[in-house]
């Protein structure tokens, strides 16, 4: 039951001999599996930029988007909280210049507001096959390593337990005036990440980091899919 749209994107990347999908492609794969991602447009020229501004609105995040570029923050390829068309055009020029000729474009996406960042992911274990990860996201992923794993396919029970297993589990509760996270959505997302791993043997790793809680709703803000 491979999703056809996702299969097309992955096949294309494999045919081009690529080891990763671009963020834009990765999110299309995720969206094809019903995983909520940021509303976004990939702009390669000024006409597309204008269209994007109309479609996404402000505030806006703009990122250099190419399968070949990692560490976008360090290279100055991410501009956040863009509030006017003038700012957007300036950012567009700077990002394209910073991409130093890499194939790609500028990803324009809605800016998700939320103070709680989660991580979801997938890794292919040599013995157990695709395993799904859940944990604290953003900078805390590497600092606290507060994560839990389950082998795909996940049952609802597994996904719920993963959320209860991390030390920072209270981040999902109603805390400091923030709403409790929509656990059902999180469960569905984790199950879907596992399903992608089962459907595509060519996917070695997936990183959804951060997944930001916008109010109670989780949204994938950045995504990486690593191929075989």
């Amino acid at each position, binding site marked *: 039951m491979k999703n056809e749209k996702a299969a097309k994107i992955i096949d294309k990347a494999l045919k081009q001999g690529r080891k990763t999908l671009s963020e834009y492609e990765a999110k299309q794969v995720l969206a094809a599996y019903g995983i909520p991602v940021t509303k976004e447009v990939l702009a390669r020229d000024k006409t597309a930029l204008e269209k994007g501004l109309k479609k996404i609105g402000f505030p806006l995040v703009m990122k250099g988007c190419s399968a070949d570029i990692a560490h976008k923050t360090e290279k100055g390829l991410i501009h956040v909280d863009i509030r006017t068309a003038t700012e957007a055009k300036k950012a567009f020029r700077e990002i394209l210049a910073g991409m130093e000729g890499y194939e790609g474009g500028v990803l324009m996406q809605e800016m998700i507001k939320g103070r709680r960042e989660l991580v979801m992911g997938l890794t292919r274990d040599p013995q*157990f096959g695709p395993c799904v990860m859940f944990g604290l996201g953003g900078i805390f992923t590497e600092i606290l390593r507060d994560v839990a794993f389950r082998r795909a396919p996940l049952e609802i029970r597994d996904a719920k337990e993963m959320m209860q297993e991390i030390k920072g589990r209270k981040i999902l509760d109603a805390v400091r005036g923030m709403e409790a996270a929509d656990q059902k959505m999180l469960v569905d997302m984790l199950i879907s990440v596992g399903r992608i791993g089962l459907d595509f043997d060519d996917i070695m790793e*997936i990183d959804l980091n951060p997944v930001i809680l916008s109010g109670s709703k989780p949204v994938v803000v950045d995504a990486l899919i*690593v191929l075989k």
Partner: protein
Amino acid sequence: MKASLDFEEESFFQGNTAILTAAIRKEEMIKSIKESPLYSIVNPRSIAFFGASNNFLRMGSIMLSSVQELGYEGKIYPVHQKEKQVRGLTAYRSIMDLPEVPDLAVIVLPTAIVCRTLEECGKKGIRHAIIVSGGFREAGPEGAALQKEMEAVARQYGIRFLGPNCLGIANPYIKLNPTTLTAEGPPGFVGLASQSGSFITQMFDYLHRNGMGFSAALSVGNEASIDIVDCLEYLGVCPNTKVITLYIEGITRGEAFVRAAKNIIRRKPIVALYVGGSEAGKHAGRSHTGSLSGPNEIYDGVFRQCGIIRAQSLTEMFDYALALGTLPKPKGNRVIIQTHSGGPGATAADACGRAGLRLPPLSAQTVEKLQPMIPRTASTANPLDLTYSLNSAESFFDIPDLLLGDPNADMLLAYFLSPGIFVDRILREMGVSEEEIPKTRNKMLIDHAEAFRSLVKRHPDKPIVGFTYRSLQEGMVRYLLDRAIPIYQDPERAARAMAAVLQYHRVRESIATSDV
């Protein structure tokens, strides 16, 4: 319109296949140990023994001597090229000379002649073997090639075997111990499948001292023919095994392992010790997920997923096994602690808190009934501290009986301090003669132990656990350990074991309900 119809049909079809696959998978699970390739290895009626001689210092001789020592009642046929007798048994020059086809061959020979011997066993009609000899896959490319040859021979003759490079099995129920060390203590309820041979032969005394014994112990070695999943399945249906313990360094058949464990967990608990590496990030992943997915983290997740309780040490694994093999299912996590000393009680309370257990207050009616039995200085809080008590009969029966009857209690944790040496002193002071002292002391301790033990029948749905800082081998504690009352040498260990029992029953229910 057309497209969506197709989609629906396809998903309907997929759904049916999934159900079908699930049904086939359930079918695959063995229902009796007789269906297991391990059956004749663990329960042989006759054994051909290769590698034992009259030189006791040879490993094969030591292993045969262990078999004789425990009193195995089946037939043993030593095979030896020169000796007429080996360790008092008639020896045979060739496997072909044996008067019957034995159920099992135990091979403890030099690497170079193992394959040839296995082939002769095949020709004789033997279908099961334990290959103790090393020098195969674990010893580099040449050894790996030899192991391939061995596997080919086994396939040709339909032989299933444990090893190579293993210590085989121990089955105390049929007095069979072909491992190196002496089997100590009676048979028990702990099944062990181990990727280290040492643990099946070096744990007899440890288990006995702590109130347990093996139902069957299996060492898998290089897993050329039978692997740890086969062992898990065997122990899952082994009627003598109440708790399965696993020592794991790495699993090859990941999916089969998960399937077997999830199935078994509905019937009996599994405790596993995994020691494959606690440092994450061996995996040179390009993603955060990749770099965080060390084997330790993955095993942790997989164990939880199939309801396996993970132990962090061998001590912890067997501590959990003792509680899981003896205690009934608790209704909840509320523990009442009985002590007659402040410190041990407070330590126990602290340990329970850390283990996620709760200490409820005693109910008003319990407090009222307790008043006449306890000194005025005693506290009726939880832990219930009896302080210095003159009436030991009450503290081993009446008081714990009241506590177990308390509607607030799901479990009882009792402090044990009944040193025989101290009882002797009291008896001496009371004027009991020296020769009467041991008899009187033993009778007294056994009476108390029996009274305490009777609580299990009176409160069948409430786990009763003890802890002591004295030796577990002292009269009363030993007596209770021998009769399936778990007593630990530290309240921390007791509390964690009680929490493991709760964890098992919770996960069992959760797995059972998520199936529907």
